[in-house]
């Protein structure tokens, strides 16, 4: 059974229909990279999956749990879906350790000691154990994003959603974040990543999903999409994005 099933999602903001019926499935351990021009609903798609944004129509299942069910326990579901934001959104008033520990203490109800141990382990995993007592403002962008990944991982998510995790970073800081994500993918984490990093997409993605104008234009394994896209528009976009961002990463 698929770990994530998205069926016919629609979302409209005023006159603009951002999602016009998006469907997608994800098997456990699979990594999908979503690409496409900006404003084509990629972020909205991610936010509809854990209902940070309420979809107008369509359904989402996490395993056999319907996320879009009227009576779904959203807080419980969200705790199982890690979300990494473009601009990190670390809690400004909390240290790196407390950022990672908060969900464990307040959502999972874990004891303080256990939560601290777990949080430290996650910080170590992203290479920031030494920065445990630093506040977000004292960390570089790359470090902040790694803490935010640790914050999501600490909750033992079944699924990780990355919303352009490197777009807000200076070029020299992108690598450290991508390295963490590549490691995660290798360890078998199920993830959806919205990104322009083609090098990452090529080396890590099981499938690339090309979205434009609120719909999925084409999806398939990277080697297929890069070499022989079925839709000319896909090839055009891939060429342009590769020129813009290069293939580093």
């Amino acid at each position, binding site marked *: 059974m698929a770990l994530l099933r998205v069926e016919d999602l629609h979302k409209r903001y005023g006159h603009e229909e951002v999602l016009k019926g998006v469907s997608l499935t994800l098997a456990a351990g699979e990594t999908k990279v979503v690409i496409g021009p900006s404003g084509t609903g990629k972020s909205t798609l991610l936010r509809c999956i854990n209902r940070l944004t309420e979809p107008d129509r369509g359904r989402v299942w996490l395993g056999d749990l319907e996320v879009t069910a009227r009576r779904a326990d959203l807080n419980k579901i969200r705790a199982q879906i890690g979300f990494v934001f473009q601009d990190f959104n670390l809690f400004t008033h909390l240290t790196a350790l407390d950022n990672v520990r908060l*969900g464990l203490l307040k*959502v999972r109800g874990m004891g303080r000691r256990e939560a601290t141990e777990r949080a430290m382990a996650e910080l170590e995993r992203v290479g920031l154990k030494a920065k445990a007592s630093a506040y977000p*403002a004292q960390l570089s962008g790359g470090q902040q994003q790694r803490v935010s990944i640790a914050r999501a991982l600490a909750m033992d998510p079944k699924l990780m959603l990355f919303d352009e995790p490197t777009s807000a970073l200076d070029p020299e800081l992108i690598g450290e974040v991508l390295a963490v994500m590549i490691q995660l993918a290798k360890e078998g984490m199920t993830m959806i990543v919205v990104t322009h990093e083609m090098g990452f997409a090529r080396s890590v993605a099981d499938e690339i999903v090309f979205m434009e104008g609120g719909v999925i234009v084409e999806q398939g394994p990277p080697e297929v999409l890069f070499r022989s896209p079925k839709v000319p528009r896909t090839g055009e976009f891939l060429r342009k994005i590769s020129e813009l961002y290069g293939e580093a990463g």
Partner: protein
Amino acid sequence: MDLGVWAQVGSYLPVLLQGLLVNVELLLGLLALGFAIGVVAALLEVYAPRPLGFLASAYTWFFRGVPEIVLLFLFYFGLPQIGLRLSAFLAAVLALGFRSSAYQAQIFRGALLSIPTGQMMAARALGLSRLGAIRHIVLPQALRLSLAGWSNEFSSVLKDTTLAWGIGVVEVMRQATYIRARNFTLTLPIYLTVAFLFLVLTYAGNFAIGMAEKRLRIPGLEGRG
């Protein structure tokens, strides 16, 4: 004014301080009440559904718009008409406390609105309830950002406590009147002394708030309020 006058004033100092203690009691009471209601009103204004938010806005609008002395009279003389009997002290704490809550609500509201929406979103994404997110994420940040505005409110309501005499609370200004009534010649020095006492209190209070601000300061959280 010669030294003899100040010696006389000095002999009245304990009495003035006793009066000042009443002002401090009033101050603590009204600040605490104002804080509790102010936080709730601000949260309702920012987060509650329309009708509740509107109610909170109407509340702050009313208490910001009516002069203190009128509020004092309404609470002390008006409430007995509907069967609520309050001591002058309690009426003063309530009237001035409600008024302060309206101003404090404005301070907290501004601070709440200055917290980036991403903070709430990240908290919800972790699985925190809306209330949990407010309690653990938004409020701790907003309250820190409010301290500067709050210290203004402190100075302002400290002076407002002298209005409580209007309904018969014997505070420091009234004590000064007692002294003056039995000795006209002390009028000026007594008021100078009262002014000095208030300056000291204001300074001490603002100093304490400043210390709290420093202790609670977190890199990256200043300046936005």
